[in-house]
C-alpha cells in the first residue's frame, strides 16, 4: 500500500512534467502575447517589457528557467525584499550563517498582467477561497445527490423515482449561468435573505455553494441510482436477503458500499474541478477565487499564470484520483494493490 502510494506520487511528477511541456508549447504557439492590447504599445516599449519579463530569451531557455525556478531551491541572504522575480512559497530562515540566510523554494514567477502580484500571491490569496467554496459545493452535491439517487433506486419505477430523476435532469440541463442569477434575484434582491455577492461570511457562501452544488448533485444522483440498481441485482444481495438479513442492513452495508464505487470515481475529478475554482459562479457572485484566472490568463496570454493554474489543477486531479484508488480498496475487498 505504502509502496503503491509512493510509486503513484513519483508518477505524478512525471505527469506534471509532461503537462508543463505540452502547456508551455501550446501557449507559445497561440498567436498574440501578454502585451497585445487595444491600445498598442510602441515597439520600443514592447521591447522593454519583453526584456523585463525575459520574453526575449530563446524559448528553451525560458522553459528551463521556469522549471528551474520552481524545482531548484535557493538560499539567499540579506534583506528579503519581495520582487516579481523572487517570491517563493517556502521561505525558511536558516539558523546558521551570516546575514539572514533564508532557504527559499518554489517560485511560479510573476503575473504579466498584474504588475505587483506573482502567481504565488494568487495561490496564497485566491486559492483558499476557491477551495472553501469548492468543498462547500461538494458537500451540497453529495448531501443532495446521493440520498436522491438512493431514494430513486429504492423506489425504482415509481412516481418518486421519476420525480427525483426529473429534478436531476433539471440540474444537469440548466446551466449554472441561469440558476445563479435566478437564485441571486430571488433570495438576495427580492427576499434580501443573503447578500448578493462577496465572500467572507457564511451567508455569502450559501447561494454560490448551492448553485454550484446543485448542478453536480444531479450527476451524482443519476450515477448513484444506476449503480445501486445494478448492485441490487447481484447474487450477494440475494444471498444476504436469503439468509434473512434485515433490508435496512442489506441496503446500507452491502448494497450502498459497493454501489458507491462509480460515485467515488467521479468524485475525484469533481473535487479537483471544484476546489480549483469555477469561473462562472465566482464571477456572478463576485468571489475573489481562482476560477477567473483559468480563463483570463489564457485570453490575456499571461504565461506564468496559465502554467501555474494548469499545473495546480493537474496536481489536484492526480492527487484526487490517487485518493479515489485508495478508497476503492476500502470499498471493495476484492481490490488489492499488489
Amino acid at each position: 500500500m505504502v509502496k503503491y502510494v509512493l510509486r503513484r506520487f513519483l508518477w505524478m511528477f512525471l505527469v506534471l512534467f509532461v503537462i508543463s511541456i505540452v502547456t508551455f508549447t501550446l501557449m507559445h504557439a497561440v498567436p498574440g502575447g501578454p502585451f497585445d492590447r487595444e491600445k498598442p504599445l510602441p515597439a520600443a516599449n514592447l521591447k522593454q517589457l519583453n526584456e523585463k519579463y525575459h520574453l526575449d530569451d530563446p524559448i528553451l531557455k525560458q522553459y528551463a528557467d521556469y522549471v528551474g525556478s520552481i524545482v531548484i531551491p535557493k538560499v539567499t541572504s540579506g534583506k528579503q525584499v519581495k520582487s516579481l522575480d523572487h517570491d517563493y512559497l517556502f521561505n525558511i530562515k536558516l539558523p546558521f550563517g551570516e546575514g539572514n540566510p533564508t532557504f527559499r523554494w518554489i517560485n511560479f514567477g510573476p503575473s504579466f498582467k498584474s504588475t505587483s502580484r506573482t502567481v504565488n500571491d494568487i495561490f496564497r490569496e485566491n486559492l483558499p477561497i476557491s477551495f472553501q467554496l469548492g468543498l462547500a459545493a461538494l458537500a451540497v452535491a453529495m448531501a443532495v445527490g446521493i440520498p436522491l439517487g438512493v431514494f430513486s433506486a429504492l423506489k425504482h419505477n415509481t412516481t418518486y423515482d421519476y420525480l427525483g430523476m426529473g429534478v436531476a435532469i433539471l440540474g444537469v440541463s440548466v446551466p449554472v449561468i441561469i440558476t445563479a442569477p435566478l437564485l441571486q434575484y430571488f433570495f438576495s434582491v427580492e427576499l434580501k435573505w443573503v447578500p448578493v455577492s462577496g465572500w467572507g461570511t457564511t451567508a455569502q457562501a450559501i447561494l454560490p455553494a448551492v448553485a454550484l452544488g446543485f448542478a453536480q448533485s444531479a450527476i451524482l444522483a443519476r450515477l448513484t441510482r444506476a449503480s445501486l440498481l445494478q448492485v441490487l441485482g447481484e447474487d450477494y444481495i440475494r444471498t444476504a436477503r436469503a439468509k434473512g438479513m434485515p433490508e435496512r442492513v442489506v441496503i446500507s452495508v452491502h448494497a450502498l458500499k459497493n454501489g458507491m464505487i462509480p460515485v467515488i470515481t467521479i468524485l475525484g475529478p469533481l473535487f479537483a474541478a471544484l476546489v480549483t475554482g469555477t469561473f462562472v459562479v465566482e464571477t456572478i457572485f463576485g468571489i475573489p477565487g481562482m476560477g477567473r484566472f483559468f480563463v483570463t490568463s489564457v485570453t490575456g496570454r499571461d504565461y506564468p499564470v496559465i502554467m501555474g493554474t494548469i499545473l495546480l489543477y493537474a496536481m489536484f486531479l492526480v492527487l484526487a484520483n490517487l485518493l479515489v484508488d485508495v478508497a476503492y480498496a476500502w470499498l471493495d475487498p476484492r481490490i488489492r494493490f499488489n
Partner: protein
Amino acid sequence: MRSRNFARFLTIAVLLMALTAVSMVHAQDKKILVTGINMTNGDPESLDPGLSQDTKQIQILDELYVGLTRLDEVSLEVKPGLAESWTVSDDGKVTTFKLRQDVPWVRYNAETDAVEELKDDAGKVRMVTANDLVYAWKRNFDPATASPYIYVLAPYVAGGAEFAGPDSELGVKAIDDFTVEVTSPVTAPFALNIYGMWFSRPLLQSVIDDAGTSWTEPENTATYGPFAFKEWKHEESATLIKNPFWPGTDAVPQPKLDEVVIKFLDDTTQLPEYEAGTMDAIEVPADQLDRVKADPTLSTEYSNGVQNCTYYYGFNSTKAPFTSAHMRLAFSYAIDRAAITDNILKAGQIPARWYTRPGNVGVPTVEDAPADFGVSFNVDKAKEEFAAGLKELNLASAADLPSITLAFGNTPLHTSIGQAIQQMWKDNLGVSVELAALDTTTYFSVQREDSNQIFRAGWCADYPDANNWLNETMHTGVAQNYGKFSNPDFDKLVEQAAVEPDTAERSKLYAQAEDILVAKDAGIAPIYWYVTKQLRKPNVEGTYSVIGAEYYEKWDIAP
C-alpha cells in the same frame, strides 16, 4: 453600601450606554459610497502610477495622487493641481511650476484607523517636493521600469525619448523644494495636460525602495491626494478614505465623503447589488438596458453621459481593394450608423461623422459643424464612390473584387455590429464581406503585425485634445494606425497644429485633417461616439465626468 454600589454600577452603565450610542451615531454618520463605476471585470492590474494604463487604474490613481495640473472632469479645463501656478517661457518650451507647500505624504494606519502624515528620519513631516516629482519622472522613464505609458510624455520633455537609465539627462529640474522646471524640445499647448497625467505624478522613493513591487499595497504605500488608500482586497474591492491632510483647493476640494468603496464586480452583478440597495452608483450592463429603462424606479435613476471614445472601422490601405480611397469612402458611406445606435446599442450613443469625439479641444461640436462636414450614411454617394473605385482599380464590376474580410475581437457587441454592417454593405453596395471573429488577443496581435482589409478599432482619449487623436493615433507610422493610413497633407496639418498656440487656429487645422481622414482620403470609417450608462441612487450627489474617471472628492451622499 449596597445602594452606593448600585449607584456606581448605574452610573457606569449609563456612561457606557451613552458612549456606545455616541459611537453608533458616529458610525452611522460616516458617509460611505459604494461604487462600481469604471471598475468592471477584476482587479486593477497595477496601482503603480508608472505602470498603469487603463481606466480602472486611473480611476483610483486620480484620487490617490493629484497631478501638477488637474483636468476638470466636466469642463475639460486645465486647472491647478499640485502646482498652484505656472509660467511658460516666451518660446513656449520651458514651463516652471510652483508646487503647493502644504501637501504631506500620507498613509492609512490600520491600527489607529486614521490617515497619518509620513515623517522623515528627523521626525519632520515629509512634504511632497519638487524632488519627488523629478524622481518619479526619471524612474518612470528608466527602461528597467518598463512603463507602458510614459511614451505619451516622452516628446514633451527634453531627453525623454532617448532616456536610457539613471545617468541620462532629462529636462526636468528641481529649482528648489517647491519649484520644478520642465524643458520641452517642442512647443505644445496641450503639454500642460500631459504634465498632470498619472505617470507624471510625484512618487516617494523611500517606499518604493523599501517594499519592492508590493509598495502599492495600502500598508506600504505613500500617497497625497484627496483620498488615502485604506484597503485593497485583491479581486474584490479597494477602499479609499478621506485624507484630512489634503489642503483642499478650488479644483480638488476636501472630500465630503468619508470613504469610497470601489467594487471590482462584473456589471451583471453590480445591478442586483444596486437593486438590493448595497451599491450606490454602478454601470449598467448593456443587456439590461431595456429592463432598466422600463422599470419605474430604475429609469429615474438612469443617466447617460459623455464617454470620450470613438468606435470605428479601419481600412488597410495597402491591401486591395482598399488601396483606392474611393473604395474606402464607398464602404464608409454605406454604413447606416443611426441604425446601429438605435437598434443595437440603444443607450444614446451618437452616430459618428468624424473621428475625434466632440468635446475635445480643437474639434467641432455636432451643432457647430457644417451639415456636410465629415461622413454619414448616404447610399447615392456610396454607389458613386464605389463606381469610381472600381474604375480606379480597373475592375469591370463588383464581382471582380477580391474577397474582403472584416475582422474584430470576438465579443457579442462587435459581432452584432459586424453582422449589421455586413448586411448594409450587401444591400447598399452589393458586396459580400466575410466576417472574422478572432479571440481578442489574437485579434490585436494580428492587427499589429498585418491588419485585415477592414478591422474594428476604438480609441479613448488619454487627454482631451485633438492631438491625442489625430496626431498620436493616425499619423503615418504610429502604433495605433493599424491600417497604415498615410497622407502627407494630413501629417503636415497635425504636425502644424501640435505646435500652434492659438486654439482657434488649431481647430481650423484639425478640421482640415479630419476632412482628409474620414472623407477625402477615408483612412477610417467612424461609426459611433460612446456614452456612459450609469445608475445612481437619488441621494447621491456628484458631477458627471466625461474623462473616464469620476472625481469622488466632489461627490456627496444626502442624508
